[in-house]
């Protein structure tokens, strides 16, 4: 019994750990797509954020500065995407593809410059702290490696992610800004006739989504592991996008979806640790197969914001 609980604790803990980067990025996806702009460049933003986060954390020795810088890095790419899509009516998916080249390109370029030609950073000395250990001391609140410890003694980023889910939900559904954002994504012309600046809201949304994705990347590189490498972010941005779709563009839905995918990864590690005789390659496929199965089984067609992807053009007026 004790063993089963411990296994469960391990599973939950690992799920939380791996879901967190996805949650940040997926929230970013919710924000931008709710405003009507498709952003498949989340992967590139996450990649760039992961690098900048690790690099900044390494040089300043402070993980929170690193985390914040990661957000800024993602926001920078978000700005580029916003300029292209909002001001210049670019094809949004193509712009996203460009970001997916630029993000890793700039990240690896800087990596080579700053870390002596390598495509990975050096180990970050201080990772994101574990608040429970910090507050109560190691092993004091819950026995180390006990069930509760495994579940709750997590990086601060995990708690932050859950808080942000609530915050995004609140802002989106309970505030004036959130209502305007939704309006812009559903019927930008209506918002326009009421004097709401569609451009300004979309710019803000896209830049914010970059910030979130950047944080998501850092949640990988200075929490889950303690360095950035060029294989660290491999498709996570796209999984976050799938989570957003599966979550029907709602923050709470995205959270559940991310937990599911994080769980698949956690399950993969769990089976590996247990020495189950399934080849690691097959296990690694699990999250991706799961994504397709879920999208196929559960998602209806018409829940996307009505004006998504359509260009809103005020020029010539």
């Amino acid at each position, binding site marked *: 019994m004790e063993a089963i609980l411990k296994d469960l604790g391990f599973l939950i803990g690992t799920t939380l750990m791996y879901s967190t980067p996805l949650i940040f990025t997926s929230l970013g996806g919710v924000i931008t797509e709710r405003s009507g702009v498709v952003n*498949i460049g989340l992967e590139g933003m996450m990649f760039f954020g992961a690098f900048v986060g690790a690099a900044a954390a390494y040089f300043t020795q402070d993980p929170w500065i690193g985390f914040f810088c990661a957000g800024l890095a993602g926001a920078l790419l978000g700005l*580029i995407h916003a300029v*292209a899509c909002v001001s*210049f*009516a*670019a*094809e949004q*998916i*193509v*712009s996203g*593809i*460009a*970001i*997916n*080249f*630029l*993000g*890793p*390109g*700039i990240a*690896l*370029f800087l*990596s*080579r*410059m700053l870390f002596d*030609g390598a495509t990975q950073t050096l180990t970050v000395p201080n990772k994101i702290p574990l608040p429970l250990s910090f507050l109560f001391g190691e092993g004091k609140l819950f026995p180390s490696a006990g069930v509760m410890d495994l579940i709750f003694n997590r990086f601060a980023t995990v708690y932050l992610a859950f808080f942000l889910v609530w915050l995004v939900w609140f802002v989106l559904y309970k505030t004036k800004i959130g209502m305007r954002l939704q309006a812009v994504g559903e019927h930008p012309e209506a918002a326009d006739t009421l004097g709401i600046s569609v451009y300004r809201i979309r710019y803000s949304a896209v830049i914010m989504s970059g910030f979130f994705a950047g944080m998501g990347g850092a949640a990988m590189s200075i929490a889950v592991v303690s360095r950035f490498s*060029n*294989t660290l972010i*491999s*498709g996570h941005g*796209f999984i976050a*996008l*799938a989570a957003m*779709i599966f979550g029907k563009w709602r923050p709470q839905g995205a959270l559940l979806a991310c937990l599911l995918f994080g769980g698949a990864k956690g399950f993969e590690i769990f089976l590996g640790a247990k020495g189950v005789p399934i*080849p690691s*390659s*097959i296990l*690694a*496929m699990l999250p*991706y*197969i799961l*994504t*397709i199965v879920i*999208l*196929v089984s559960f*998602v*209806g*067609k018409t829940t996307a914001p009505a004006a998504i992807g359509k260009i809103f053009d005020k020029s010539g007026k």
Partner: protein
Amino acid sequence: MKLNFPNLKEQFLKGTLGLTLISIALGFILGALVLLVAGFNPLEAYWVILKGIFSRPKYVSYVIIYATPLIVTGLSVAFAMRTGLFNIGAEGQFIVGAIVAAAAGYFFKLPVGLHAAVAILLAMTAAACWGGLAGYIKARFGVHEVISTIMLNWIALYLSNFVVTLESFGRQGTGKTYAIQKTAYIDILGHWKRSKAGIAFLREHPVLWDVLKSPVNMGFIFAILLAILVWYILNKTTLGYELRAVGFNPDAAEAGGINVKRSMVISMAISGALGGAAGAFQVLGVSHRIAKLAAMEGYGFDGIAVSLIGNNSGAGSVFAGLLFGALKYGGSKIQDAMQAPTEVINIMVGTIILFVAMPKLIRLILTFKGRGGKS
């Protein structure tokens, strides 16, 4: 029937060719700026790249060899784009094609020429299923092909890694499979150049010798043939007409009686087949086996760039593929030559794609410059 053609300059500027070339130029300028800011001399870097491409016949040959898979994945993406679909899955289709080609090349024993043909066809069929699956998921369940193809990419990657570990196929402990039979090779003069007679001949002909130092193979020729085939299908056949109609306006196509769902599946299947062909050419012509991959090699993603830069056309894919191949090959040399990160090429490509996506911006720049020039 008199048609008013705009004058050449107008056509150039308004036409997509002009915009593409300007986007490419802007990409190069930005690359130069990035190098400058990082403390490198952009002219020196570009010179290294140029030398790395043109200074020896071997280099030119390598560019063509590097370009071949890019051209074909470019065709794959371009075909899907023309029919209204975003095939981000060329990477996975490439891998599937490579797996099947490597397996068919190793396990079968067939005469020269036939062996390669069978391997290629099987590879294309398997990859067609891989792509068609994404098309089916979209048609039946409404799942956007961007997401499903990306997931299939990862599944293909891990499938490939798994296959490499199989005892019957992979040499245990090396992370590579056994090489394909010699009869499956599509190299040009591959055996001859190693034979005594060949070496003797080549001593007398240094240019040819230099060229043959690279793995010259039929892949490029096949790529050109596929480009022509793609052009033909899209523009000359009823199938192409259907696919283009669906690509431009699925509602009108449906109202006209075209089976939109079936078109989506067929389009993704053909697109997949092309991606698989790229993988097959790479295996049969260059690597002759498959190996365990730590990450995706990027042929499929680069194919997206090639397609976008080449304006989603057959001819465009060929030229953009060659450009990209040249940049990748030449760009790899600046790392060793001057410690300048090769990723500047990725930044350049990303910039070019970004500008290609914003024709409004370029037109704005041009009119602005025009007005400034007048006053």
